């Protein structure tokens, strides 16, 4: 005991993500993202869940993060549910040209009452399918020729404790929220310098 303590309002996570299947993968860069999400809910949820897909434009800085889409999911009675979350491909204009090709990250987050309780990260490898282009990539990326390959077998899941009964304000009050931090970051995450990959429990890139 005594190793981690929570406020009285914290209860067990009501939603457990059981599986995320990456559909249409690999696919051309311009195709929409499709994730089939299966989750289980312990009891009826009075409010909707909010899911987001965030595309990390550049590992260097969060300012290139794009929220591809956010969607409300509800009503959610107790039980096991699934849905497909489809979101358009990222706006190429917002991606630094140097980061267009190579490895980046796509994040799926879910919030309840404004509090993020799960963050699922996937490594994404964008590369030209044409060997010629691969050898000699154009300076200005040709997105039509890029293939997106999500490393579906290796999701990185981070779960956060939230107050399922109350609203976000109380958690926002907690000490470790940096007002300057990106709003995408959950309150309990280290704000600031940590690159998006740092969110993942262990960023072993060696698996790529």
């Amino acid at each position, binding site marked *: *005991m*005594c*190793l*981690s*303590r*929570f406020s*009285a309002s*914290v*209860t*067990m*996570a009501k939603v*457990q*993500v*059981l*599986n*995320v*299947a990456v*559909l249409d993968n690999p696919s051309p860069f311009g195709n929409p993202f*499709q994730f*089939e999400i*299966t*989750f*289980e*809910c*312990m*009891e009826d949820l009075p409010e*909707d869940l909010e899911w987001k897909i965030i595309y990390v434009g550049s590992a260097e800085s969060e300012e290139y993060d794009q929220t591809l*889409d*956010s*969607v*409300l*999911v*509800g*009503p*959610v*009675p*107790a*039980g*096991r*549910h*699934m*849905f*497909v*979350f*489809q979101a358009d491909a990222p706006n190429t204009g917002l991606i630094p040209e140097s980061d267009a090709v190579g490895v980046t990250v796509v994040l799926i987050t879910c919030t309840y009452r404004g509090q993020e309780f799960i963050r*699922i990260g996937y490594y994404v490898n964008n590369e030209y399918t044409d060997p010629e282009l691969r050898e000699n990539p154009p300076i200005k990326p040709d997105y039509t020729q890029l293939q997106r390959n999500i490393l579906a077998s290796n*999701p*990185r*899941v981070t*779960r956060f*404790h939230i107050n399922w009964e109350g609203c976000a304000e109380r958690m926002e009050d907690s000490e470790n929220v940096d007002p300057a931090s990106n709003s995408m970051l959950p309150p309990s995450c280290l704000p600031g310098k940590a690159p998006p990959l740092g969110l993942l*429990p*262990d960023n072993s890139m060696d698996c790529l």
Partner: protein
Amino acid sequence: MKLLKPSWVSHNGKPIFSVDIHPDGTKFATGGQGEDSGKVMIWNMAPVLREEDEKNENIPKMLCQMDNHLACVNCVRWSNNGLYLASGGDDKLVMVWKRAAFIGPSTVFGSSSKLANVEQWRCVTILRNHTGDVMDVAWSPHDVWLASCSVDNTIVIWNARKFPEMVTCLRGHTGLVKGLTWDPVGKYIASQADDHSLKVWRTMDWQLETNITKPFSECGGTTHVLRLSWSPDGQYLVSAHAMNNSGPTAQIVERDGWKTNMDFVGHRKAVTVVKFNPKIFKKKQKNGGSPKPSCPYCCCAVGSKDRSLSVWLTSLKRPLVVIHDLFDKSIMDISWTLTGLGILVCSMDGTVAYLDFSLDELGDPLNEEEKNTIHQNIYGKSLAITSTEAQLSTTIIENPEMLKYQQERQNAAQAGSGPGGAGLESTAPKLNSVMNGESLEDIRKNLLKKQVETRTADGRRRITPLCIAQLDTGDFSPALFNSVPILPGSSMPSQLTPQLSSDSSQGQASSLGLRPSHDTLLTSPPVKQSLLLTSASKIEPMKALDSRFTERSKATPGVTADGSSILKDVKNKEETSSDSEDKMAAINKNLSFTKRKADLLMDGGEVVEKRKKGRPRKDKMATPISQCYTNKVLLLLLLNYKLKDCVCVFVQVSMEPSVFLEVENDVSVVAGSKLSQLRCSRDGREWDTLLPSSVVTAAGSSDVIAVACEDRMLSVFSSCGRRLLPAIQLATPMSALHCSSHFVMALTAGARLSVWDVQKQTALVKNESLLTIMSGADTTVSQSLLTQQGVPVIGLSSGKSYCFNSSLETWTLIADKGDSLVQCADFRSCLPSHDAPVSSGPLAVMQGRNLNAGRLASRLSSTPHHLQQSMTLAFLENQLAAALTLLSAQEYRYWLLIYARFLVNEGSEYRLRELCKELLGPVHKSAATAWEPTTLGLRKRELLRELLPVIGQNLRFQRLFTEYQEQLELLRNK
């Protein structure tokens, strides 16, 4: 002693706070800190026990991990039956886990370890009540209760048969409660807290039995846990951290007077955990040594903050063994295997250690029988049933037949743990598929197209997720702990259920009939038209009956009369009833007269159908008949109508063959006397006969038709219309008339009962007075019936039912609705687990089919087990005796099986043996024996053959099983 530290048992280096070995010894659970949550893990025991299994890659080490606890898990405990795991943690929650077998991911999604969960355990219930960290949980003997204690200073007792119901909250500690232990015989629960006290609570009333403070007065509150333990013989309670002369000890508290004279001394720091070996030992007999009987002793392991473990035998003054530096940090929990030879210890440093003792070191463990004998000697028989099935599982099965039944029982235990359990799947908390037969694959293919997507008012996308399975949260029915409860009567067609409820209203109607409310009708203006009260919709049988009974129904038969004559009759009737005995009205259970009035009043003069006279059209009758027929319920629709002059009654007597009876009074006048006609239609063939007086009541069965007339004559005809008996003269007017098979029962207004066997032309009951059973001024007859075997049964308004036993020539009580035994008896676990035919018969009718096995049993869960056991036993024996006296063979067999199952479950060997002996009878023929080979037409040895599989389910009765199986075999070959 061997010592092993299986390095693979770890929570990734995080502390392990608790360890518990499954009762079957094949796995164990650990609880502690996870990555960012509490963690419960289930491990395979085999790789701990055997090196070759540890090396075998194909044998999984980790079976399941659960991250559901939000914060550190302080305690994990298996239920005694091994079906459930309870865990308590810093998140203030107690979770109860159950093995699941539904489709699902075999890994925790996104888990960094790619280790698959070999077993799926899921949380079936979350117990919320504590307002602080839960420190310890404990299942009571027999898994009746689950106790949890917390830093909120309370102990909560949960009803383990009905989670999440709370039985009580024990308040009294003024500090963090850090340990719990149940008395092995279930009489007490003890708790130890930081408030320098150890408290013992009674389970009888949940009050404090004793409060022990002296040995703890010097203690500081720095121990993480204070896991105390009760010895398996129940005689000693050993505390965790106590102080004696400034030294840390484990205090021994004697059950006798709660004396605190002894302690275990030697640890350098506070004792965190004490755990008794579940076995009682006796000294190993040395070869050639004197067989001097030695005193049995217990064995106890003590773990401390000083990182060392000591193991003590209560027969030795010094510890058997002390192991220092086993861990880097404090010992947190200890668990013994049920064999008593192995021990798992876990530590704050995140490791576990396994110690393996030999019999030479500990001694000879007593078997369950010997342990029971000790318990019986100390606590008496009733409290001593402590051996669990799991403990028995170590017994060697000697008989191949026995093995079969044991396996069947295990399969049943797995299958039967869910209502309607079919196969292994049902052990899972049910996820009710809502996919309408579509496969998950089909759904997934089209999910994107199919899912409903809308836009919210502010233009946001909103997806309605597709529900692929509903969570059955009502999983924790008592059925899970016992077998499937099939309540008597549950297989009755639902159509008949409402009729049961009319039972009470009938009683009301009867009493109503005695009130002066008669007058309302008498003075009410005559109804102008003639009334026909019959309508198909009004015919509803009053009792759920099967073919064996003739019973009157609430049906208002085709009564046609003109209003004035009704009034006249009413007056006549009033006069007759006033000059007959007072009791007449009381036992006049028919009261069709009153009822008809009630109908009249209810209808408010509304004329259902105007008809001058005569029988209702056939099509009117057809409706209820066909209904009955489709339900395949053989309804002997009533009979028993008090008829007035000019009244025609049309009744169906039997469905199969279909027999209709029609009575018409005053058909013609011959030589000044009025004649009545009795017409009977049987399978389309009709016969009729004339009677010299008005018919008052008629009844029939498939064999006989009986008619009572106004002149107090009773006539009996065969089903083809032959007069079977000369008219019988009754002393007083007929009150109730029943026919069943070839028996006729007459209940007269003079409160006298007669039953005749028409076939043999003898009287079974001779004008017997009901006054014996009708004590009390307000008692009335609320129900009467005649069984197929000719046993008359009388139900009284007091809720008691009697039958007249003609061989004993006495009234015998067969049912009492107010009997507390009925309400407290809990034999749910002994009910047939499959869809066996439920009890139906006279006993069920008289007791009401809503007889609910242990309806109050759960409410009385605080009743000590032995009390409830005795009540159940008494109840079941009553049922058997009642079925016997009612000559109801089917019910006798039904209750006999339940009774046997109960005896087997409860381990009542003497009764079981006597029962078997009686059923088997003498193996060798001898003239002197009075043993009857049959009872109620059932062959006793056949019954015994049916009982053997039941007996075979309890390993303890192995000898008994073999003995009787062999004798039966012997007899069969003769």
